[in-house]
């Protein structure tokens, strides 16, 4: 092990870490925003709403993230209409392509998690809300969605970790995230072990932070389930 290479390139890695965190956060937030309406569509009784949402979820969960990212990054340039529209500003940049691909992908997975959680809402809760004269939107806002978020929490924690791991793919399309930084160090000094293990170590730290964060959130959200301490 040559520690000097790692130490000399630490700024590169830290920058990469920052890019990774940025990518993951933006993708998660926008993906979640997309997932809530998708999940609601997927449980709706109207088949015009249900089938598009279900096929969206099926497509994004059934194909590899790498292929989805390539479809956006390499594929979009194929269409004249897109190349001449304002969207080309987005699809020209690897950074935005990665973010859009990650957001769409995590939206598919999150929608499926939320769909399961919504369907598990105890029927008594809905009945009680109806009995107290809540309108449909109030019912969703106050009863179904908050309860589903709580039920979805453990599965969503896993999804966040998968998103972190998936974000390493950004390094493949020229973005200098953690993996991209490791690739640069490896090609410059040819030290595959040092370069990639360092990146792996940083990813490991991030994973532990996420696990710890979700444990903390669970402690707060699951207060009512904790055994009573006198």
């Amino acid at each position: 092990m040559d520690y000097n290479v790692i130490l000399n390139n630490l700024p590169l890695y830290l920058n990469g870490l920052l890019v990774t965190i940025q990518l993951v956060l933006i993708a998660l937030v926008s993906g979640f925003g997309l997932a809530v309406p998708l999940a609601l569509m997927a449980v709706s009784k109207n088949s015009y709403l249900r089938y598009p949402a279900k096929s969206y979820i099926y497509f994004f969960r059934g194909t590899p993230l790498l292929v989805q990212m390539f479809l956006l990054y390499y594929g979009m340039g194929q269409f004249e209409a897109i190349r001449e529209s304002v969207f080309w500003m987005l699809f020209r940049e690897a950074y935005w392509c990665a973010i859009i691909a990650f957001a769409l992908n995590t939206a598919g997975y999150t929608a499926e998690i939320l769909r399961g959680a919504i369907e598990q809402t105890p029927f008594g809760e809905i009945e009680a809300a109806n009995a107290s004269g809540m309108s449909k939107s109030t019912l969703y806002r106050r009863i179904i969605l908050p309860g589903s978020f709580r039920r979805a929490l453990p599965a969503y924690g896993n999804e966040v970790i998968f998103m972190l791991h998936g974000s390493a793919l950004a390094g493949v399309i020229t973005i200098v995230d953690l993996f991209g930084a490791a690739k640069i160090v490896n090609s410059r000094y040819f030290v595959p072990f040092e370069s990639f293990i360092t990146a792996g170590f940083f990813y490991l730290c991030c994973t532990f932070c996420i696990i710890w964060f979700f444990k903390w959130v669970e402690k707060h959200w699951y207060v009512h389930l904790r055994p009573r301490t006198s």
Partner: protein
Amino acid sequence: MALTIEVALLSLLISVILGLFGAIAKLSKSRIARSAATVYTTLIRGIPDLVLMTIIFYGGQIIVNNIGDSLGWDYIDISPFVAGTLTIGFIFGAYMTETFRGGILAVSSGEIEAALAFGMSGWKVFFRITLPLMVRHALPGFGNNWMVLAKTTALVSVIGLHDMVYNAGVAGGATRQPFTFFLVVALMFLCITGLSDLGLRWANRRYSVGVRKV
């Protein structure tokens, strides 16, 4: 597509074997085996598969040749196929460990006690009682792992294996129609996952015969 399926099935085999050993180790009485298995699953599940794959592909090459040098072998070239298959098998071995561990724990202890009372040896109990009974509990998790594994095989194109993602990139570049080619690849993956979904549902029904549904 044939190559993708080949990589997927071979690494599935490796991961199932590793997963069984890992699950036995995690449930064993030996502290060393338990902690070794815990380190294995934690490390693998904490590091992105792409990073692991590059570590094993580039790093494994160096290790193998260092060993080879000291033994006086010629230069050994690890092909992307071997590296990719081994890595994916190695990664999903960790996920399988957790799935199988849960499955084994779900087998009711009465069945195992009964087997022991019949005078079966430890291995016999495992192969005749625990293993067949644990399949039912482990099947949903196993199915999920297989789907994720099948999609992970797309990563082998990054380390230079000419699978369908790689070929689509080449063909798309040559014909200037990358979207079309990648879309076809995406649909092929959908076929694989869709068919596996059907197969798993069938297997699930078959292994749950005799279980009362709520």
